[in-house]
């Protein structure tokens, strides 16, 4: 390679190599900035209209968290099974934040995701959305598109395991009773320019990707500080008003 491959045009080779490197890094940076653009400040006051999501925790907690997720997306599954238990225990149960799940079914790539959203919505009718949510994510490899073309059989099994009224659940599932709610949840994500799943809205920040617990906590802390600072500023302005009056 060495002696034979050192022709006079070596400098052209290095130039070409440099161009490949610059173009490659540029493309990667473009992809990354495309994603980080989504993690910019979002309009937190844009409260969902039709979309209500599924609430966990105290709705009046200082920080509001929204998750836009697809039941069949592996990264969402990883977050739900690895990170979310800690988030619930240490953040939601501790009253630091409320947590609202919004379906964002990527029906273009995941054939079984909409039935899964339906399964969870029908479980919500019986007060067991989160139980079904967890069961679906833990069992994702058993019912995803690669595993089966008929996920209902498995979802029925989950409904039985969770102690649901299976007849009522099945009727709801077959009727796709909550399709508009699910699509409303997705529309809310689209309105907020969610581009990948999972995507979180924590306070005023939108963060794409299955972030770690530490990152999640840091975002919640930052949002809480923002809320506290905002509250203090309002109190100051009100007391200022009092002086001038």
């Amino acid at each position, binding site marked *: 390679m*060495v002696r034979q491959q050192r022709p006079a045009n070596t400098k052209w080779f290095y130039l070409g190599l440099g161009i490949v*490197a610059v173009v490659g890094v540029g493309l990667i940076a473009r992809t990354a900035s495309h994603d980080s653009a989504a993690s910019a400040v979002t309009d937190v006051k844009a409260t969902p209209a039709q979309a209500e999501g599924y609430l966990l925790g105290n709705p009046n907690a200082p920080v509001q968290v929204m998750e836009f997720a697809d039941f069949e997306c592996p990264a969402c599954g990883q977050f739900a099974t690895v990170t979310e238990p800690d988030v619930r225990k240490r953040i939601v149960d501790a009253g630091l934040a409320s947590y609202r799940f919004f379906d964002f079914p990527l029906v273009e790539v995941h054939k079984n995701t909409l039935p899964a959203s339906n399964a969870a919505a029908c479980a919500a009718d019986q007060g067991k959305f989160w139980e079904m949510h967890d069961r679906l994510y833990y069992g994702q490899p058993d019912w995803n598109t690669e595993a089966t073309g008929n996920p209902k059989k498995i979802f029925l099994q989950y409904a039985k395991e969770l102690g649901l009224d299976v007849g009522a659940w099945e009727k709801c599932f077959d009727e796709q009773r909550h399709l508009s709610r699910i699509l409303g949840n997705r529309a809310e994500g689209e309105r907020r320019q969610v581009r990948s799943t999972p995507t979180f809205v924590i306070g005023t920040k939108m963060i794409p*990707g299955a972030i770690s617990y530490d990152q999640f906590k840091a975002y919640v802390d930052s949002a809480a500080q923002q809320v506290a600072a905002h509250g203090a500023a309002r109190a100051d302005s009100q007391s200022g008003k009092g002086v001038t009056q």
Partner: protein
Amino acid sequence: MLIALLALIGVLVALYLTLYKMGVIGTLVCQVGSCERVNTSRWATFLGLPVAAWGLATYVLLLALALAGLQGIAPRRSAWGLVLLSGWSVLFSAWLTYLELFVIHAVCMWCVTSATLMLLIFISSVVVLREELRGA
């Protein structure tokens, strides 16, 4: 020259996957296969580090060895280094491909690209080493 070019492409592919694992990139572009399924599986980590990060380090080393060879710095040692490192990496890639096909049941096009690059680097390195040994 070919080895340096292949290694550079490998650096870019591995960098892309590493940034995904670090959460800098939210979604992988993946027209073929199930890249996310593979890269979020438990086999996407090796000895506590993402496999993509190991790949990145390996490609950077291969690129450095290839450029050293091109510059005439310890050409025979560079050629040996290339053969040994890429040979080991081909075996590792074969194991990862086996996991994709028979354990995870999903294929990641970036991983297949990387495995192909590594195989081509290994074959080219063997050719280069033979030339070095003949020229001695």
